[in-house]
């Protein structure tokens, strides 16, 4: 076993995150290839790019139109300039309605603004109703993939959790029983919740309609059964008209699941009327939180993202480390671009653009043709300009000079193996597999977030020379 990260427990087999992610990415790649044969993929990508580019370029005008149409259909519209404003609006809406219980359908935007924490602080019980999100929430964990929030967990962990929650015994192999248990618990939640909160995949300015795309049916229930429906969207999710929306409604499931359609697509236009049994109220919360400021910059195309999750599965770095390693709501290549783009000066996110090998796989799979690899380079350059790390740069330059000459390389490699090796190997011996979780000073900074191999006692080039005689 190798390639471990983030200090997994020593005695455990390969962590679920890597195993699951590789399986998930494999499934995705196979289905995607089949589905894309259904259409002229390159032409479709170009059309999707055109639809999203039009939307972002004309954002203020389209948001105005959307707002007008939503109000005309009887819905209310709220503007939130920041994440804090958005959570305050939603918490107030819940409070004003005396809501004790909320059915929450998976929304990355809600994750972005920290909605669950805000509701909890306000004493409102918000239960995640997506299967993966429910598991993650009950564990006190965070989602690790845009579409598959619990992809980092094993069935055994889920069975243990559900056994604990219910007092029954669950067999990790009996996935159907696990799902049936959660269905039962969540069914009560749908039937009793005062408020349903969902995200929005596409908002159609033409008619003020909100398109909600899903596999499980929990979004449809959250938007149908509670008396109040609150929909939260980043302003960039708007599109001009139904022609564009229809194209994206097909592109999204093709890119994310390799299927021509999602299991369930709901189109909500205002609250219930004309004898419909749906919610009495619809509130649309429009979140800016840095989006307007990205327009007109060289990162504008990141706003074209439709959150399909394809670049995550395609990314060799994401597949290895999983979403949590990014430490942000949006992970993978799009997260590494979008997060620093939305929070331009945050030192915590400045490192994200380096979580990439710049192989360009993300750009190749993106259904709306965001040049993610170019944007990663742009962000690296910007971060470097802000904080040049002169000491580090000088060190690397000296290293490069040393290792450009065979003599320099041999001398240092031998020294590392002889002088440093014993110390290092002592640390690695404790783990028994040649990996160490804590390298000796001054290299311990490197192992604070990853494991490392100890240097070989005899450098490769020496062994090679002996081997060749």
């Amino acid at each position, binding site marked *: 076993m190798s390639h471990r990260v983030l200090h997994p427990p020593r005695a455990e087999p390969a962590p679920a995150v890597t195993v699951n992610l590789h399986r998930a990415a494999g499934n995705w790649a196979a289905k995607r290839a089949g589905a894309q044969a259904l259409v002229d993929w390159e032409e479709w990508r170009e059309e999707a790019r055109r639809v999203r580019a039009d939307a972002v370029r004309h954002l203020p005008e389209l948001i105005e139109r959307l707002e007008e149409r939503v109000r005309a259909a009887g819905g209310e519209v709220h503007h939130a300039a920041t994440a804090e404003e958005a959570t305050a609006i939603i918490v107030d809406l819940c409070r004003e309605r005396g809501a004790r219980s909320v059915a929450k359908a998976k929304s990355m935007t809600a994750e972005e603004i920290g909605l669950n924490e805000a509701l909890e602080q306000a004493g409102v019980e918000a239960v995640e109703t997506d299967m993966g999100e429910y598991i993650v929430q009950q564990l006190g964990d965070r989602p690790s993939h845009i579409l598959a929030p*619990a992809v980092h967990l094993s069935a055994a962990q889920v069975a243990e959790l559900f056994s604990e929650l219910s007092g029954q015994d669950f067999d990790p192999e009996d996935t159907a029983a696990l799902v049936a248990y959660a269905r039962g618990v969540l069914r009560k939640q749908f039937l009793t919740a005062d408020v349903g909160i969902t995200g929005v995949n596409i908002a159609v300015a033409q*008619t003020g309609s909100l398109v909600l795309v899903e596999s499980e049916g929990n979004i449809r229930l959250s938007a149908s059964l509670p008396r109040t429906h609150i929909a939260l969207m980043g302003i960039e999710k708007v599109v001009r008209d139904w022609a564009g929306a229809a194209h994206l409604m097909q592109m999204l499931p093709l890119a994310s699941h390799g299927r021509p*359609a999602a299991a369930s697509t709901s189109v909500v236009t205002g609250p219930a009327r004309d004898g419909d049994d749906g919610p009495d109220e619809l509130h649309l919360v429009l979140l800016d939180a840095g989006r307007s400021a990205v327009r007109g910059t060289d990162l504008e195309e990141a706003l074209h993202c439709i959150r399909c999750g394809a670049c995550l599965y395609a990314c060799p770095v994401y597949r290895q480390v999983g979403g949590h390693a990014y430490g942000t709501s949006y992970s993978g290549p799009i997260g590494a671009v979008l997060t620093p783009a939305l929070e331009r000066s945050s030192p915590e996110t400045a490192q994200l653009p380096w979580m990439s090998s710049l192989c360009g796989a993300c750009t190749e799979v993106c259904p709306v043709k965001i040049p993610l690899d170019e944007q990663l380079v742009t962000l690296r350059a910007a971060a470097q300009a802000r904080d040049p790390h002169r000491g580090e740069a000088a060190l690397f330059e000296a290293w490069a000079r040393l290792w450009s000459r065979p003599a320099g390389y041999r001398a240092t490699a031998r020294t590392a193996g002889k002088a440093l090796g014993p110390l290092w190997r002592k640390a690695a011996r404790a783990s028994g597999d040649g990996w160490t979780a804590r390298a000796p000073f001054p290299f311990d900074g490197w192992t604070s977030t990853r494991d490392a191999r100890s240097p070989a006692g005899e450098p490769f080039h020496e062994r090679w020379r002996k081997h060749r005689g």
Partner: protein
Amino acid sequence: MGERSLDLVDEWRARWEELDGRAHRIESLEEAQALAREMIGTATVARWEDARLGGIAQAQAQAPEAEVSLLVADVAVADTGQVGWAHGAGRPRGAGVLPSRQVILLSQDAVVASLADALARLGATATSPPSSLVLIAGPSRTADIEQRVIRGVHAPREIDVLVYRGTG
């Protein structure tokens, strides 16, 4: 999407079945009603108010308790395999989503080529669209636990679409 065959119903059906839905082609509305009656048997049913659905169910129940959801779809999409409908008076949302089995009647004339055609037919593109439209593509599903696909999470697990000849 791809080559256009002569029969939209066949095209829709192929996609729908790939998505784990079940479909049955029937010569007339009466025969479709008879087949629905046979499929449902004594199971409890939540259904829409629609003359075409009369006399099918032996036992009715409120949507949260019902075993079967019975409704008439407005449209099906050959390109994507979707089946769609609008909610409204006598067409409650709960009855279409809560029971774990679903039986849907669909006129073959309601099958259209593209999603754009379907959205127009459902009224999405009208000045004032219906408050709620749904398009489904097979049973609800999750792969959230170790990528194992389980059908039937919060919405129906088994769906039979009875496609009958005529507009009736």
